[in-house]
């Protein structure tokens, strides 16, 4: 199976940016983050001690509609949980995340937005990391579909997703917390439990006993999605600080 492709800090003018492409589902996302900035309107009246997270999802070919608003709501609540909005410079300011869908099939009006959620989440996370937004933890997300015969398919393509009986999007933090759980279709609780275990092993790799320890086995780290996020960030840091590392 071909793993996802991602790169960081591609845009010059944004504070942080990332592009993410998932070959299995075909989606390609470009994310940009600006933070901390002054929001045009005072939308922070409810929680003045914290930063306000704003998410915008822009489809490549049409204007954003109800489906995008729905996805933005899910993303905002999931990402809001890991942003440390009380760090220096962030209270009462805004954290604006813009996610543009630059490749892949359009999500038709009325279709499920779950298929694209993991790609959006990954692009948003990498862009926030690139903007040095203080985060309490990282996460990784995955999409699983259950077929008519009861098989669990990882990252189903848009056509496979349409044929699936149920679709499940999961996000697990680097400390193995369940961060996001969205499902559509008909399924039983036993199925959901199986899917959750599968998703956890995809995100964390085979070793589920570690609690986000730094010294992860190199072999297992590359197989899991969390390991992929770590490698992407490390590569960018190494290339940015090449001048410093050369002299050591």
């Amino acid at each position, binding site marked *: 199976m071909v793993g996802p492709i991602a790169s960081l800090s591609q845009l010059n003018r944004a504070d942080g940016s990332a592009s993410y492409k998932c070959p299995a589902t075909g989606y390609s996302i470009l994310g940009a983050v600006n*933070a901390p*900035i002054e929001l045009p309107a005072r939308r922070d009246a409810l929680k003045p*001690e914290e930063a306000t997270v704003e998410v915008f999802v822009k489809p490549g070919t049409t204007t954003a509609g109800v489906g995008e608003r729905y996805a933005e709501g899910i993303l905002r609540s999931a990402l809001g949980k890991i942003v440390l909005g009380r760090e220096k410079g962030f209270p009462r300011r805004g954290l604006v995340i813009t996610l543009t869908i630059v490749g892949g099939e359009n999500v038709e009006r009325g279709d499920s937005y779950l298929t694209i959620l993991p790609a959006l989440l990954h692009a948003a996370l990498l862009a926030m*990391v690139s*903007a*040095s937004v203080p985060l309490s933890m990282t996460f990784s997300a995955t999409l699983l579909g259950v077929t008519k015969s009861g098989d669990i398919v990882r990252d189903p393509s848009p056509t496979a997703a349409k044929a699936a009986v149920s679709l499940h999007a999961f996000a697990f933090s*680097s400390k193995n917390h369940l961060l996001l759980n969205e499902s559509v279709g008909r399924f039983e609780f036993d199925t959901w439990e199986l899917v959750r275990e599968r998703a956890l092993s995809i995100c964390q790799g085979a070793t589920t006993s570690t609690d986000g320890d730094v010294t992860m086995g190199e072999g297992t780290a590359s197989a899991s999605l969390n390991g992929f*996020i770590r490698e992407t960030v490390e590569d960018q840091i190494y290339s940015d600080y090449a001048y*410093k590392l050369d002299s050591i």
Partner: protein
Amino acid sequence: MSAPLVLLPSDEVPKDHLPTNSSNPLRLGPGLRILSQPSSKGTNHVLTATQAGLLTTDAKRNTVSLLSFPNRRYIPTVNDFVIAQIHHSSVDFFHCMVTPHTAHALLGQLSFEGASKKTRPMLKQGELVYARVQSVGLGAGAEVELTCVNPATGKADGGLGPLTAGMVFDVSTGMAARLIRASSSSAENTDAIDGLVVLSELGKKLESLGGFEIAVGRNGKVWVDCSNAAESAVKVTIAIGRCLQETDQQNLHTHDQKKLVTKILRDMKLVS
């Protein structure tokens, strides 16, 4: 020196990477926080990262900090030198822009060297000042205050004050920090500091044209002035700005920086 260690948010700083100097307390730089876990035998303290970055320690000053991505936004910190642009002026303050899309920073009308009610600089919209961050305030929505004098001496130390003539170029905040480190330690050592030779190279090549003057703001701005260069002043300014920006954007190595300087100066017909 141990192998370079990259931390992601929620990663713990390994104990063996911390400096072992115990004469003064350990100081945490940006991107790190201390978490306390109550356990059966007292509380347990761990240092965790809140940003992704390269862990660096300074044994002499007993500090540990994270070097984060260079393209990040500048967050005002007390005692940083910044280049601010005047947005408008009110009775007591100049309202200055330090970073785009953030609230204006305040610069007192009298916080200049030797300023009094009668002899204060009349700065207009768009003019530049080299200032120091005096305070960032407490709590949410606090205002950032700038000053152009050292409050202890009343003098404009380190070239603080209005910047006249010249031109400002935008660079990344990481590049600005590198330039500041390079210039502060260049007195005894003109070799590559932090892998940066572009400035010393430009200095050598442009000496015949009268040299140049630069000021680096922590907020990712570089002011360049070379009014000594007479008729080629504009060309020299642009050339310096281009060298700095390209070094920054392409993350050039030292030998590439030298090549770039030669190429740009030849392109602009400054040095044959």
